[in-house]
C-alpha cells in the first residue's frame, strides 16, 4: 500500500505523475462522487463536477503542502466545486435558492437514476432546505459516516461546531418530515 507521502511525491514528479494520478482517481473516485452527488443530486452534474475536481487536483498538486491529509484536501476541492456549481446554476437561471431547490426535487423525482421512495424523496427535500454548513455536515456524517475529526479537517470547522450543526440539522429534518 502506497503511503500518502509517497503518492504525493509521485504525483509531483513528472516521470511518475501519470500512474500515480491513475491510482489516485481509482482510489477516491467513488467516495468523492457520492459526496458531490448528494449536493448536486443529478448524475450528469455530479459527473461534470467530479471530473473538474480531479482536473483541479492534478493541476494544483504542486501547491499541496501536506498540512492536511490528501483526501481532506481533495474533499475540500470537491465540496467547493459542487457548491460553486449550484450557485452558478442559480445565477444562470436567474432564480432564487428556494426556486432552484424546488426545481432540483422535481427533476430528482423524474430522474431515472433515482429510485428512492416518497420518504427518501422527502428526506432529500428536507436536506435541501438546510443551510449550507448544516447540509454538508449532515450528509458527511449520516451518509458517508465520516468521523467528526475528518469532517473538521475538510470543512475547517471545529468539532464542537460540527456536532452542533449536525444536531440542528437532524432536528430540522425531523420537523420537516413531520410537517410534510
Amino acid at each position, binding site marked *: 500500500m502506497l503511503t500518502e507521502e509517497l503518492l504525493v511525491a509521485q504525483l509531483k514528479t513528472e516521470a511518475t505523475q501519470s500512474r500515480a494520478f491513475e491510482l489516485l482517481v481509482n482510489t477516491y473516485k467513488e467516495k468523492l462522487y457520492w459526496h458531490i452527488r448528494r449536493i448536486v443530486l443529478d448524475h450528469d452534474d455530479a459527473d461534470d463536477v467530479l471530473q473538474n475536481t480531479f482536473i483541479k487536483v*492534478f493541476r494544483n498538486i504542486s501547491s499541496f503542502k501536506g498540512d492536511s491529509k490528501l483526501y481532506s484536501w481533495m474533499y475540500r476541492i470537491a465540496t467547493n466545486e459542487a457548491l460553486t456549481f449550484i450557485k452558478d446554476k442559480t445565477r444562470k437561471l436567474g432564480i432564487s435558492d428556494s426556486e432552484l431547490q424546488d426545481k432540483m426535487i422535481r427533476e430528482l423525482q423524474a430522474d431515472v437514476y433515482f*429510485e*428512492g421512495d416518497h*420518504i427518501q424523496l422527502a428526506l432529500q427535500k428536507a436536506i435541501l432546505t438546510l443551510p449550507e454548513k448544516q447540509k454538508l455536515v449532515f450528509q458527511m456524517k449520516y*451518509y458517508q459516516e465520516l468521523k467528526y475529526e475528518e469532517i473538521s479537517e475538510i470543512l475547517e470547522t471545529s468539532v464542537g461546531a460540527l456536532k452542533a450543526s449536525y444536531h440542528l440539522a437532524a432536528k430540522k429534518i425531523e420537523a420537516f418530515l413531520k410537517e410534510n
Partner: protein
Amino acid sequence: MKKISNSFRTPDGYFDSFTDKLTERLSKEETITVANDGFKVPDGYFDSLTSKIQEKLIAAEPVKVIGLHSYKKYYYAVAAMAAVVVLFFGLKITSSPVLSFDDIANADLESYFDNNELGLSSYEIAEVIPVDELEIKDIIENHLDNELIIEYLNNSIDNFEELNLDTNE
C-alpha cells in the same frame, strides 16, 4: 450452590418463532438505509471514469511544439515593416540635424512664457512687440457674444451718444 428457579415465564414457543417474527417486522418497517438511499449510477460508470478523466487532461494540455511553416510569411511581413520604420527614422534624423525657431511649436512657446519670469520692463517688451499691428484678439481670447456686449451697454451706458459710434475709436 443451589440454583434459584426463575419465577418469570414466557408463552409456549416464544423463542422458537422470535427470529422469524423479528425479520418480518424489520422488512415491513420503512427504514431509510444509509447506503445509496435511492441514488443510482449508470452501469459501468466508475469503470470508465478514470480513463475519461485522463483523456480530458491530455486534451487540455497546451501544444508544446508549434510548426513554424504557416507563420513564415508573417515573420517576413513584420521584418519588412521593422526595416521600413528604421529606415524612415534614420533618414529623418540625418536629413534635419539643424533646428530653427520655426520648428518650435506655438504651444511650447506659450508654455515657456507662462512658466518663466522674463524680467523685462514694459518699455523693453514694447520695443520687441509691434504694438501698431496688435489687435485686442491677439492678447485676449474673445469669448464675448455680441448679444452680451449689447446687454452690457444697455445696462451700463445712460447716454449712447457718448460712445461715438460713428467713429472707430
